């Protein structure tokens, strides 16, 4: 039997609120299946299963605030004797005390305990209805939707209210820890990207608007590939030891419309072509703002990039996200005077900076890392095979 615990969905997270179950007892789940939606200070996150198995019981109720590490469900591993637990009668789930007036629900209705309780509260009849859960089981969301025509989604409701304050608190905790614990050093360089942007314009001219690549995706691709080669920039430091990562889960700082930011990961970004990275980035930005980020995307970052965009400042010196050991800052691309063969010419340039952890690397190594990013941007192969 596997205890499923409420995972930490960020380095400073101590508790979270269960918003919704996405599984029912009896259901088979695989590693990576979304099992629940949990609200954190920054966003509602889709929590994924770490294991393959069969859901035996759910031990928490939507709406509950839970400490990180609380056992919220139990899974039977594929090898274990299958428990005979009819999905329609989930036992051992702490059903929230329904009002005594709640009508008994026919046993043939397949519904999650929380959905039954909520249905009783809202006076929604469940008989004869099919939900969107596995096998037509009625979920809490179904009940909410039936209760009001335009019921706000759990994620939307959670996104309102005091969200900006809590986002700011989460950023403050993480950044204060970073400045307390990580001896940062900073380097920056101005990189001539005129040739790279010229190739990108040709690349985009041949594509419909849905297949176009933004300059930021090209820059991120170069950073991801360089990070894959520089093991001392890509990994995690637990305060005592540094563990380099074998893969690059590239955190990308995304500004939230309500203020603040979140930096979810593009998983295995070093393996992506520019086109694939662009698709991934587009999807990640949408979900960061609208909800639907997955737990693996908010916990597994190995290095982070913050890009200010074309309305931003020329450059920035960033703050590393613990337990990572490097942050790459990308400023605004702009025309700047460049000396070429003794003549000053206007060229499109971008200032790329590195904030890195002196416990793991030094300035010489950092300079090599920045030089590698610049070299990748000059190489026409960056855009090939996309």
């Amino acid at each position, binding site marked *: 039997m596997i205890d499923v615990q409420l995972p930490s969905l960020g380095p400073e997270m101590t508790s979270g609120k269960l918003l919704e179950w996405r599984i029912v007892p009896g259901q088979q789940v695989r590693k990576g299946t979304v099992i629940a939606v949990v609200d954190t200070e920054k966003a509602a996150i889709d929590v994924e299963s770490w294991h393959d198995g069969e859901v035996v019981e759910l031990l928490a109720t939507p709406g509950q605030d839970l400490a990180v590490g609380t056992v919220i469900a139990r899974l039977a591993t594929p090898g274990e004797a299958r428990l005979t637990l009819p999905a329609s009668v989930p036992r051992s789930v702490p059903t929230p005390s329904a009002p005594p007036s709640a009508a008994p629900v026919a046993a043939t209705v397949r519904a999650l305990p929380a959905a039954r309780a909520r249905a009783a509260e809202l006076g929604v009849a469940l008989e004869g209805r099919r939900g969107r859960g596995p096998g037509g089981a009625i979920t809490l969301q179904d009940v909410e939707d039936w209760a009001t025509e335009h019921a706000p989604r759990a994620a939307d409701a959670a996104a309102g209210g005091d969200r900006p304050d809590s986002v700011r608190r989460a950023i403050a905790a993480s950044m204060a820890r970073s400045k307390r614990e990580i001896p940062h050093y900073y380097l920056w360089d101005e990189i001539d990207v005129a040739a790279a942007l010229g190739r990108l*314009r040709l690349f985009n001219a041949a594509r419909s608007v849905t297949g*176009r690549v933004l300059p930021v995706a090209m820059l991120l691709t170069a950073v991801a590939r360089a990070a894959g080669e520089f093991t001392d920039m890509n990994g995690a430091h637990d305060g005592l030891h540094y563990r380099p990562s074998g893969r690059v889960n590239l955190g990308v700082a995304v500004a939230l419309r309500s203020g603040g930011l979140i930096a979810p990961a593009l998983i295995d970004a070093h393996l992506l072509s520019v086109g694939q990275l662009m698709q991934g980035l587009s999807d990640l930005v949408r979900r960061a703002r609208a909800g639907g980020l997955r737990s693996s995307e908010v916990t597994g970052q190995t290095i982070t990039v913050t890009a200010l965009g074309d*309305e931003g400042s020329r450059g920035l010196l960033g703050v590393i996200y613990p337990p990572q050991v490097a942050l790459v800052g990308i400023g605004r691309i702009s025309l700047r005077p460049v000396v070429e063969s003794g003549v000053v010419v206007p060229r499109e340039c971008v200032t790329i900076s590195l904030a890195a952890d002196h416990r793991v690397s030094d300035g010489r190594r950092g300079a090599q890392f920045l030089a590698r990013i610049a070299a990748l941007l000059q190489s026409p192969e960056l855009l090939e095979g996309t």
Partner: protein
Amino acid sequence: MTQNQELITAIIEVLASVAPEVRDLELDPHAPLRDQLELDSMDHLHFLIGLHGRFGVDIPESDYGAMRKLDEVANYIAPRRQPGP
């Protein structure tokens, strides 16, 4: 003019899918959108993808400069839009 108004309303709907705060604003059609909304390059691209889906108009990168204001977007779309279903 009424046809233009209908087009502008439809364009604002597309914009709202990218920047929901537009619903609470009175946009000036003659002022740059980026001065009135916080749109980054990804938002702008999502807006263009939305226009493409809605009106069947594919806007080449070289024309981006002609689409900074709401009235410019409408003037660009109007002669090129595909007849709706």
